[in-house]
Structure formats: structure tokens, C-alpha cells
């Protein structure tokens, strides 16, 4: 375990970009965990007297049209956004990788069926498909996670299929068979762990994308409903005020969203370095 930690320290310390990304990630995680405790105001508390105030000492990010403190809302929303993104990506990663790995390893009819399924999903414009799923199944957060996971599935299935296909004929897979592993076990314990590092970069890019997706859905009113703070909703609420000059209502949640996506993008390489044993010196 200590060698993993040492390796983690090395990876993080080696590249300033990785360091930055991890730093941002820690900030976000802290905000998600402690948001409601460190928020200066109750995110749902309205105060019409102090509505539409620009950023000031009392309200660092200003207030919105109902007098709610935007900083508190942005902070508290972190948990929800992260949870949705991580939940959706985890689900699609697990299911997609499993399906893609089987397709890539066994080939023949397994490959045909799984590929046709993923092709079907990809035939739709993905955001529209997500909208349709949420609208059909019901307008709640769980279905937002599910919808985002479903439209994301083909991405992982294809990647896994390709990575597994390349490694299928490798010597160590044959050696694993010779050592008494069944084909399925060889796939699970030997091929998939080696196929993971290149996918890690994609996982983190995907987190950013999933977050945008969820934000997009709530922007148009699907999924998360007001007054629950969520960055997409916050931006939606603020959008109507931009032209009238209250720029801060949309800007700060938008910035938070941007920083989160940025962080995930940068994290990709770091994650891969962390997992790939070849990077160990």
C-alpha cells in the first residue's frame, strides 16, 4: 500500500498540471462534503429585501432574484453535481466496460449483439435521447443519472472492446490459460486490468461531460427542480437576468461548472499515470 502512496506522490509531484488538477479536485470534494456546513447562509433561505444585490462583502457572489446567497447555493450544489456525474459515469463505466470487454474478447455473436445495441443508442442524438428517457421515466434525479449513464454507455463499450481486442492475443493471456484460467477469468483478471489505464483518461473527460449533460438537462427543466441548488439550474435562473445587467447570478455557477470540467480534464493524464504500472520507476 505504501508503494502505491509513494507512487501517487511521485505522479502528483512530477507534473504541475496534475498537481493543479488534484488540488482543484480536493477543493471540490471539500465543498461537496462540507458545503452545507461552511456555507455562510442557508441556500434555500429567501430574503426579498436583499434581492439582486451585486457581489459585496456580505454576499461574495451577490444574491439572486429571491434574495438567496449565491455563494451558498453554488457551494451546496457541488455535492449534487458531483454525485450525479460520478454516479452516471460509474454506472456507464461498469456496465459499458463489462459489455465491451466481453464483445472484444469473445467475438462472434456476443460481439454482434452488443455492438448492435451500442450502435442503436448512438444512432440517436444523445442529448435528445437523455431528454426522452427522463421525460418518459419521470422527472427526478435518479433518472437523470440513469439517462446520462445510458447515453454514455456506447462510449465505454467501444473503448473497452477495442482495448480488449488488441490485448486478446497477447502472450500473457495465453500464459494465463496455460496457468489454468478459464477464458472468462483470463479476461477479468488479466486483460481488463491492462485495458484500464488508457480508459482512465477517458473516464475523467467523461466526468466533465456528464456534469455538463446533467446541468443541461436541468437547464431545460428536466431532472433537478428548483429550488434545489444545482449549477445547471442556477445558470438557467441567471440567464434571464444577464440582459438586465445582473451578470453575477449566472456567472458564478457557470464558473464553478467550468472549473469542475477543467479539473476533470486535467485529471485524466494523472489518473492514467497513477494506474499504469509502467510509469513506476
Amino acid at each position, binding site marked *: 500500500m505504501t508503494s502505491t502512496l509513494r507512487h501517487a506522490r511521485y505522479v502528483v509531484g512530477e507534473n504541475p498540471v496534475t498537481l493543479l488538477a488534484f488540488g482543484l479536485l480536493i477543493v471540490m470534494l471539500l465543498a461537496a462534503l462540507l458545503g452545507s456546513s461552511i456555507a455562510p447562509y442557508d441556500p434555500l433561505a429567501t430574503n426579498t429585501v436583499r434581492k439582486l444585490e451585486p457581489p459585496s462583502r456580505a454576499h461574495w457572489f451577490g444574491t439572486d432574484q429571491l434574495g438567496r446567497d449565491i455563494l451558498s447555493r453554488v457551494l451546496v450544489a457541488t455535492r449534487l453535481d458531483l454525485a450525479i456525474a460520478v454516479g452516471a459515469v460509474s454506472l456507464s463505466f461498469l456496465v459499458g466496460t463489462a459489455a465491451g470487454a466481453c464483445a472484444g474478447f469473445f467475438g462472434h455473436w456476443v460481439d454482434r449483439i452488443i455492438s448492435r445495441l451500442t450502435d442503436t443508442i448512438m444512432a440517436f442524438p444523445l442529448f435528445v435521447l437523455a431528454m426522452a428517457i427522463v421525460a418518459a421515466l419521470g422527472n427526478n434525479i435518479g433518472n437523470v443519472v440513469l439517462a446520462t449513464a445510458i447515453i454514455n454507455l456506447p462510449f465505454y463499450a467501444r473503448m473497452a472492446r477495442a482495448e480488449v481486442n488488441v490485448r486478446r492475443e*497477447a*502472450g*500473457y493471456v*495465453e*500464459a*494465463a*490459460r*496455460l*496457468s*489454468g*484460467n*478459464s*477464458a472468462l477469468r483470463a479476461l477479468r483478471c*488479466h486483460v481488463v*486490468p*491492462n485495458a484500464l489505464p488508457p480508459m482512465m483518461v477517458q473516464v475523467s473527460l467523461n466526468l466533465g461531460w456528464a456534469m455538463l449533460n446533467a446541468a443541461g438537462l436541468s437547464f431545460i427543466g428536466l431532472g433537478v427542480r428548483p429550488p434545489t441548488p444545482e449549477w445547471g439550474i442556477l445558470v438557467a435562473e441567471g440567464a434571464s437576468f444577464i440582459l438586465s445587467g445582473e451578470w453575477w447570478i449566472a456567472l458564478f455557477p457557470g464558473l464553478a461548472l467550468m472549473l469542475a470540467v477543467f479539473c476533470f480534464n486535467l485529471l485524466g493524464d494523472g489518473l492514467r499515470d497513477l494506474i499504469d*504500472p*509502467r510509469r*513506476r520507476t
Partner: protein
Amino acid sequence: MTPLLDVRGLGKRFPLRHSQSAVHAVDDVSFSIAPGECVGLVGESGCGKSTLVRLVTRLLDPTTGSICFEGTDISRVPAARFASSPWRSRIQMVFQDPTDSLNPRASAFDTIAEPLRRLGTANGRRAVSARVHELADLCGLARELLGRFPHQLSGGQQQRVGIARAIALSPRLLVLDEPTSALDVSVQAVILHLLADLRERLTMTYLFVSHDLNLVRLFSDRVMVMYLGKVVEIGPADRVFEAPRHPYTRALLSAVPTPDPVLRRRRIVLTGEARSPVDPSPSVCRFSGRCPEGFERCERDMPPLRPVGDKHEAACHLLETQAVLR
């Protein structure tokens, strides 16, 4: 004495996609290996030796023929289920390229322990650990290297890990698939000495595949030459190398670069293109068209393996003519 491995009429066809044709990778191959022997297998790319090796180690299922190991026909057990059959531990292989055949994410210890954990009778971590250390010592691998990953080991060290893994379950038949071609020549000698030593100590039988003919000669007792899926010559190593009877073997040996000008042979140049392995005609010698000595019978009949000396056989019509003339 019953042979350890007895292969009869072994064939493997790979169907081509979207057509009825098939590549005949291995065609009607028969040979046997006695216990304790080392049989060399030579041939150029496309001759079928990799396919034959995978058939013998049961990673592939044959299309025709039988593979009798210690008296039982193991070709009846499908390759997909062979991993759980009792013979799995008795036939093992050392691979050519250690960078490809060692799991990059597994330490040397885990790689060697894998067969023990899957198929071994040793129970518990202590027993497995003890056996891994024993194997590392046997293969000349320093114990402190066991925690390293393949990319942190040199080529020779990686290959020792591969060998330790292969002998972990004390197999009776060990297939060596070009075990030293990816290594420097100075390391090669060490690994070969190790393999020879292990063979004696652990009474194993070897099937030694190599493209380096000089190496096969000094390492094997008998040698088998393959061409386009068929065995063209088989016999004691010294005999086959000193006095090859098949025209292909002669051409092959003449092409081997030799440092000693005295021992150099006159080159036999092979002109023409090799025959296609797709749906080859069963009545035409595979080497005809390229053979410097063919005659019309070569395009009419497939030559069978004929004895040309003590335990020495070759598949060529010319030999029959020679026998008749004698």
C-alpha cells in the same frame, strides 16, 4: 516405451471469412516424442509451427487428428475446457517474447505464483511463497527481484520469470517457443544452459522451436522440419544437419550464416514463390514450384514420409527414386 506425446494425422484449418476456403495451417502431421527427449522444430514463417505448438499445448482445437499424451487422447477435451482438466499442469510453455508474455501489471512473484494459485495443491500463502522462492532459486532469479514488474527487469531476468512460471507445476512436457530469440546472444547462452540443466534435474521432455538452426542442432536430440503445414523431414539432429535429405532442408541449411568459412555450405537459392496455404491440393507436393530438384511426379502425388536412415525420414519423391537406383 510408450511415447510421452504421440501425434497422429493432426490437422488445423482456419476458414477464411465469407468464403468456403480455408488456410491449411497444419496438415496431416504425425510424430512422437519419447520421455526425456528434446525434439527441435524448425521451419520458416508460415510453416505452421506456431499453430502446431498451440495445438499441442491445447490452446487451440485441431480440425482433424489426435494428440495422445501419456496414452490419453487429449484432443478430445475442447481447448476452452482444458484449463480445468488434469492434464493442464503437465504440458506447459515458455514463450518467445517476455515483454509480451508477462502481464505488465503483475509482479514477478505474482506471475510465478499464478499457476500455483490456480492449479497447484499448495495451500495458503506461506506454501505458495515458499514454492515461488524455490522456483526463483532454481531459475537463478535473485529473490529481491520478485517484487518488481516486468518493465523493471532485464530481458534475461524476464525470461527467467517465464521459465519459473512454466516449471512451477512440474510439467512433464515443456514447449519452448523460441525462448532465446528476443535476448542478446550473451544472455542466450545462460538461458540455454539453465534450460538444459532444468531438463536433467526435473526430468522434463522438451519440444524446442527455433528459427536458429545452429541452436537447434546443439540443443536437440531429434529435429523436425516443417514446410507449409507439413513435416518434410524428421530425424536425429546430427544426421539431419550433416546429411539433410529433403531439398528444402538442404536449402534451409545452406542459407544459415556461419562465422566459420570452412563449414560454410554452398548456397542453394530458392526461386519462385511459395505455394498458397489456402486450399492446397492434396496431391501436389507443397514444395514443388520452388524446389530446385522437382520433377513431374511432384505435381501428381503428395510424397509421404519415407525412412531414409535410422529413425530418419523425409518426404520427397526423389528419395524413392534414389532408393530404387541404389
